[in-house]
């Protein structure tokens, strides 16, 4: 029965057990020792049909082993892989389940395993400990660093979030303290909601001692969080194991499949259809034959049990299903998995994606999505911690019209100027650096504005300080910006030491003073400012305010006009450098006015109606006529190589959308500083409307100015075959580069059903999109929107818990394993330490994986189709009797032994161009986005090619030896000789074809190719040897065939001829491509044109009509020849960098 409500009683296991709530043990593994075999076999049910109808003798055109051996191998390989995966899951489950936690049992605290914790238990958590269960916070320690009365709340670090989340115990339970006997006697009853996955809300009530208390989100500790700022905390377990919010959130992560997978499924269906068609044709053929020739032949071969022609053709149909089922090879899926696994290992092993500072190698957490990395069209990136390091540094400031801080860029700064010496200040933070001595001098000279500036920074904030040892301060801030500002003030001699709810202790230039904190007008998104009202030790009453410059400017006193102009200039300068700016202002308050204001404030804060509005008005009133002090500029340091990476990715035609929780200005600044937005852009649209109509209008206007006369209704792409989702919106071409910035409110409207297509069209016309102030849910919605309406592959990259939703929604989720926790990493498919590794992941690993997978699929289908079609042609000569062309042993081993390794080798080692060249020409990534290397068209071409090859492979041997004889007159036109001949021809043809496909011959590839051929001959001669025949005469009827056949010159002449005819068209075609410059390999380019790369400029063109990437060489001086392609969107800019093969950046 569905649980609607949860009822539990503290310290009463028996009562709670009666509800059968889930225990805290988690289980992510799928099998156990006994269920593995049946379950796993059930899951891999493919090809059972083939196996089953092998048993019916009438239609078993092949011996049982031809199907059973490959099937068994495939099943066991898959089972082995599943088993190792599951063992790993078991191991991690065990590790989690066996962690220790202190549980209050029978009045005593006992150390128990996590999995033994029950709902209703009281557990004790300690600082920095993971929270095991969804528990209600109970009582917290009276920590020594804080005053006791401050202790009703304690901040809690939500795992992988920077933000501390404040959690607070109910006073009634808080009073219980850490008195174990009192806690043991506690018998409150909790009635709360059923388990769900909403992290941000909770509803329940606690009944204790006849009273009812409300429980909300503020009182709940969630599994996966870490406890901070308190030594301990007691909690009551509400949900356990699979019912916790964390597990509910990540339990059913959608199974991701790649677009190649989906295409493959469609193709396999098509192939099945095609197979049915072939079998039908052959069955009809058999019917006709049986009516004519067959009935005459009954003298020599009587019909079985009186089957007539119709029944015989029915049986033939199924026999041919068995014979021709190699068009749908069962080993395909296993090979694909294997290749993906191999390519995932390369990601794990890549040194260039290893971050030595954090000792983090890249990790492919999902091994089934590799080739999709080569097809990414949209990248959705978090900002903080992903693009930036999430380390804020106080970089510049403007005080009373004078700027301080270095003018030079960050790179030069380190080398040219020495850092400021803060040794005068014993409380200074040694990690803080500043590069302008003038500011220290100004402080030392006691310039009043400068002092006021830093005093404001030391007072106006919500940071909490922790002083573990005398003089060793550490700050814990809700936002890193604040931390940076307070740290700056600390180093310049205004040290914030501690706070109580009504006072702030500061050391001002070595002098200890305590300010009375009268009020905090806190920050929120609308106000965009915060103020404090303090009374100085001298008794002076002042208001300090810091906030967004635009907001502060509106509230300045008229006298500041001149300063305002100067400061504005500075602010623009700062913003231009991508710094986060804040304006600072203050005001001395009149005692009487303040008293009156305070009274009204109190009234308003208890007002039953319109409390918000009234408070707002009061704040407005007191935050007016401010005096400007200056402005601060904080650098949110970009991670290394971010601008270069973004430039590279956009050259690869990847669109980057930044989804950030930051405010618009910050996001825009970062956009500029990481090259996402640039001054050269024709326009950057800012969508900030508050009503749906505004937003719609703004979107339309933006679209209108990008593409005048754009159609109002979207252009849809033609519906996909078997497409289940909404229609896809076509890409629209625009002239010029545009950017779009949209904020959270507008986004909420834009994501509405009625407007989402408008939004998407506009956004997709822009080169860069920045969404600010978005919630985790909106992040996921944006990704989902693009996924729904665009036939494009999306990638989401982020580092925090708020990115988890989008990481899960996107086709590929990438987690940055940074300083912050692991939740994003845990739900990601790939993880590494730095954003810049993304370009290597996509442009190198992704590209190669995609290329390899496509080459593999094309070749695999080719070789199997060729193999199978020969049977089809032979049917016309053997009375459609389902006689195979090849020896059954060959059929068994063809896919498993003779052709398996070379193609695997190719798909593990092949490189069309090396990594340096991929970096040099990110445009080479484009074919992947357009699915050029493996599509229905490519598949169709493959099938046609196979058809040609199979015609050659059947009819040339047929004509050559059909009537031939050996030099000694003996038989060479017999069935067995023909089988050996054809299979040898086939093997040579497909091996040569592989050789042509392969563009990177390592020793291993050579070994595999030659080894497979050698293996073929070795196995063939062994299987056809006297010894084996004498042991099992009926299993090895081909005795002596190899010896007798392969010693004949005309057999080898036939093999040679088929090989030439099979590769001739391919070589010509490839050569034409290469010669016309339709090749991307640098060496081909060099040799093909006879010019040296170093003396030429390489142009990369994409010819959309012809679906080729073209590289052209030209003399640096000559004008670029106008490329074909007709100037559509995909026309890429020429590569303007200087020639050579060096790594960019």
């Amino acid at each position, binding site marked *: 029965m569905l649980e609607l409500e949860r009822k539990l009683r503290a310290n009463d296991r028996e009562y709670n057990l009666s509800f059968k709530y889930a225990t805290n043990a988690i289980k992510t593994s799928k099998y156990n020792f006994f269920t593995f075999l049946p379950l796993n076999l059930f899951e891999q049910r493919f090809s059972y049909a083939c196996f089953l109808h092998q048993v019916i003798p009438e239609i078993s055109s092949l011996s049982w082993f031809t199907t059973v051996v490959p099937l068994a191998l495939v099943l066991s390989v898959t089972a082995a892989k599943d088993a190792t995966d599951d063992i790993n899951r078991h191991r991690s489950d065990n590790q989690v389940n066996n962690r220790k936690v202190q549980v209050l049992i029978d009045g005593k605290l006992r150390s128990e395993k996590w999995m033994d914790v029950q709902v209703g238990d009281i557990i004790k958590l300690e600082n920095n400990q993971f929270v095991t269960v969804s528990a209600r916070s109970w009582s917290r320690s009276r920590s020594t660093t804080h005053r006791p009365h401050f202790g009703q709340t304690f901040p809690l670090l939500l795992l992988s979030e920077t933000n501390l989340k404040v959690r607070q115990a109910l006073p009634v339970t808080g009073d219980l303290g850490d008195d174990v006997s009192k806690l043991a006697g506690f018998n409150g009853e909790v009635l709360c909601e059923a388990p769900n996955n909403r992290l941000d809300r909770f509803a329940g009530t606690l009944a204790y001692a006849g009273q009812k208390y409300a429980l909300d989100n503020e009182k709940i500790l969630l599994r996966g969080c870490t406890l901070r700022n308190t030594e301990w905390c007691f909690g009551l377990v509400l949900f356990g194991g699979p019912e916790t919010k964390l597990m509910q959130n990540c339990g059913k992560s959608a199974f991701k499949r790649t677009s190649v997978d989906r295409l493959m499924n469609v193709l396999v269906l098509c192939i099945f259809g095609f197979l049915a068609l072939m079998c039908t044709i052959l069955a009809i053929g058999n019917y006709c034959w049986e009516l004519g*020739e067959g009935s005459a032949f009954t*003298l020599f*071969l009587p019909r079985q049990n009186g089957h007539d022609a119709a029944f015989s053709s029915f049986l033939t149909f199924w026999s041919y299903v068995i014979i021709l089922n190699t068009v749908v090879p069962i080993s395909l899926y296993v090979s694909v998995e294997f290749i993906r696994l191999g390519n995932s290992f390369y990601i794990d092993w890549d040194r260039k994606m290893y971050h030595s500072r954090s*000792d983090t190698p890249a990790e492919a957490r999902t091994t089934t999505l590799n080739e999709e990395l080569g097809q990414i069209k949209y990248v959705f990136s978090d900002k903080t911690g992903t693009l930036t390091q999430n380390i804020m540094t106080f970089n510049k400031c403007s005080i009373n019209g004078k700027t301080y801080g270095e003018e030079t860029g960050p790179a030069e700064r380190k080398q040219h100027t020495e850092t400021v010496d803060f040794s005068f200040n014993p409380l200074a933070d040694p990690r803080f650096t500043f590069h302008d001595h003038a500011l220290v001098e100004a402080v030392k000279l006691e310039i009043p504005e400068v002092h006021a500036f830093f005093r404001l920074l030391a007072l106006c904030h919500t940071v909490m300080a922790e002083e573990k040892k005398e003089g060793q301060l550490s700050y814990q801030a809700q936002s890193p910006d604040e931390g940076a500002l307070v740290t700056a003030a600390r180093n310049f001699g205004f040290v914030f030491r501690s706070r109580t709810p009504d006072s702030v202790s500061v050391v001002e230039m070595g002098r200890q003073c305590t300010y009375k904190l009268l009020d905090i007008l806190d920050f929120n998104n609308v106000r965009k400012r915060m103020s404090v009202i303090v009374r100085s030790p001298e008794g002076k009453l002042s208001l300090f305010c810091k906030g967004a410059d635009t907001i502060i400017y509106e509230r300045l006193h008229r006298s500041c006009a001149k300063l305002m102009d100067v400061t504005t200039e500075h602010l623009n300068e700062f913003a231009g450098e991508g710094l986060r700016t804040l304006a600072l202002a203050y005001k001395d308050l009149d005692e009487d006015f303040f008293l009156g204001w305070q009274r009204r404030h109190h009234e308003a804060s208890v007002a039953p109606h319109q409390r918000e509005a009234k408070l707002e008005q009061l704040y407005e009133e007191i935050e007016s006529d401010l005096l400007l002090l200056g402005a601060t500029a904080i650098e949110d340091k970009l991670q290394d190589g971010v601008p270069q990476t973004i430039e590279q990715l956009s050259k690869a035609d990847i669109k980057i959308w930044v989804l950030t929780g930051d405010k618009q200005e910050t996001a825009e600044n970062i956009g500029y500083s990481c090259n996402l937005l640039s001054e050269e852009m024709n326009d950057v649209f800012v969508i900030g409307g508050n009503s749906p109509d505004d937003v719609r209008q703004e979107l339309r206007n933006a679209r209108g100015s990008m593409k005048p006369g754009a159609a109002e209704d979207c252009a849809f792409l033609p519906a996909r075959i078997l497409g289940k989702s909404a229609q896809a919106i076509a890409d629209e071409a625009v002239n010029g580069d545009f950017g779009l910035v949209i904020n959270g409110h507008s986004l909420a409207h834009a994501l509405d059903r009625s407007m989402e297509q408008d939004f998407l069209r506009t956004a997709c016309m822009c080169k860069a999109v920045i969404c600010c102030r978005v919630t985790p849910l909106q992040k996921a919605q944006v990704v989902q929107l693009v996924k729904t309406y665009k036939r494009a592959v999306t990638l989401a990259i982020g580092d925090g818990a708020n990115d988890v939703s989008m990481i899960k929604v996107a086709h590929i989720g990438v987690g940055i394993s940074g300083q912050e926790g692991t939740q994003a990493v845990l739900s990601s498919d790939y993880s590494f330490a730095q954003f810049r590794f993304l370009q290597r992941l996509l442009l190198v690993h992704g590209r190669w994986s995609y290329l390899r997978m496509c080459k593999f699929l094309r070749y695999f289908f080719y070789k199997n189709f060729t193999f199978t079609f020969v049977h089809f042609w032979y049917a016309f000569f053997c009375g459609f009797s389902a006689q195979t062309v090849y020896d059954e042993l060959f059929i068994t081993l063809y896919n498993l032994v003779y052709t398996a390794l070379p193609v695997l080798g190719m798909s593990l080692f092949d490189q069309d161009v090396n990594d340096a060249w991929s970096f040099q020409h990110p445009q080479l990534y484009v074919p992947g986005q357009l699915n050029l290397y493996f599509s229905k068209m490519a598949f169709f071409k493959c099938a046609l090619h196979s058809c040609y090859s199979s015609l050659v492979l059947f009819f040339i041997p047929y004509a050559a030896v059909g009537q031939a004889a050996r030099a000694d007159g003996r*038989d060479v036109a017999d069935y067995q000789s023909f089988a050996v001949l054809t299979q040898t021809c086939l093997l040579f043809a497909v091996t040569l074809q592989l050789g042509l496909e392969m563009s990177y011959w390592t020793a291993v590839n050579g070994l595999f190719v030659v080894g497979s051929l050698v293996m073929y001959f070795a196995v063939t001669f062994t299987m056809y040897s006297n010894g084996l025949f004498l042991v099992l*005469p009926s299993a090895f009827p081909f005795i002596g065939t190899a010896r*007798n056949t392969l010693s004949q010159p005309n057999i080898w002449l036939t093999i040679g001829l088929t090989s030439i*005819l099979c590769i001739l068209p391919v070589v010509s075609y490839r050569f034409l491509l290469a*010669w016309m410059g339709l090749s991307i390999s640098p060496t081909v380019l060099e040799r093909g044109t006879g010019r040296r790369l170093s003396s030429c400029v390489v142009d990369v063109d994409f010819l959309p009509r012809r679906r080729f990437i073209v590289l052209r060489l030209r003399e640096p001086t000559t004008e670029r020849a106008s490329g074909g392609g007709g100037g559509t969107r995909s026309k890429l800019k020429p590569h303007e960098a200087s020639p050579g093969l060096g790594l960019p950046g």
Partner: protein
Amino acid sequence: MAKAKSGPLARRPDNSAFKQQRLPAWSPMLTANTVLPFFYFMAVICLLLGIWLLLTVQSVQEIRMDYTDSGACAHCHDLRKNVSNAALICTCKLYFHVDRPLKGDVFFYYGLQNFHQNLRRYMDSRDDAQMVGRKTNLKKPSSYCKPFATNDKGLPIAPCGAVANSIFNDSFKFQYLGSGSSDEPVPLWRKGISWYTDKNIKYRNPQMDNLSLAEVFHGTAPPPYWHRPVYELQTHDAINNGFINEDLIVWMREAAFPNFKKLYGILQRTNKPFESGLPKGNYSVEITYNFPVQYFRGRKQVVLTTLNWFGGPNKFLPIAYLITSCLVLLAAIGLTVVCKE
């Protein structure tokens, strides 16, 4: 991987060429300098091969005669239309003239057209274990042989199966009419016409244990269409009798296609006038006409041919090489033209 590593770079991946995908490799390239010479070279090679093979094949002589219902054999053909006449012996004679002497070894084939030896059920209908002389299989033929596994009386058939049952049972007497009218039999080797491996390994008579062949085969029945049991196929030659009778072996090697020819004998070149092959003149072949072909609209032929190292007179391969050579040349020229532009 060394798991025991510790220190700041403990998790750094190995710097091996394999793991970093930097294995030394050869990247073959299709450039004008490699492809065009290769194409021209291939064209020349194919051309030379084609010409050489054509000349080789030209030297092969073949005489092919259909005797299904021609001339004297027409009455036999009609006779065989009725199954009830199967026991009646019918012979006919085929006369022909050799204009040019057939030099060297001359091979005598019988040819069948439209006979599907390659039907799946037909090909499966045999028991290799029985024919290699396994006594258990001799008495208990494989179920694949059905319905020719046991006869009406339940006796096991040896050799069992449709293949053996349908053996081609015409026999030929080849005669040289010389210049005069004196008939001189043309001696044919009737042994050495099958693969060595078939004759010596794949087919063996059951172990004799001092018994005669007939006694070994006691308790078995001949295939229903046979006139003689298997141990009387060649009574005067023990090593060509039973399962190792070469006519049987040749027949048991099923043809890949419905039109085929099978070796019947090789000219004995020990005596005059056949020391250097068949001299020109008139010949006759006396045919014991047993094998009915009209049921399946088949044709029967006698083929006389000389052979050389390349094999038979099949002109396909030389011509195919010549055509291929042209194709390669055309492609090469086309590519050259394209490249020069």
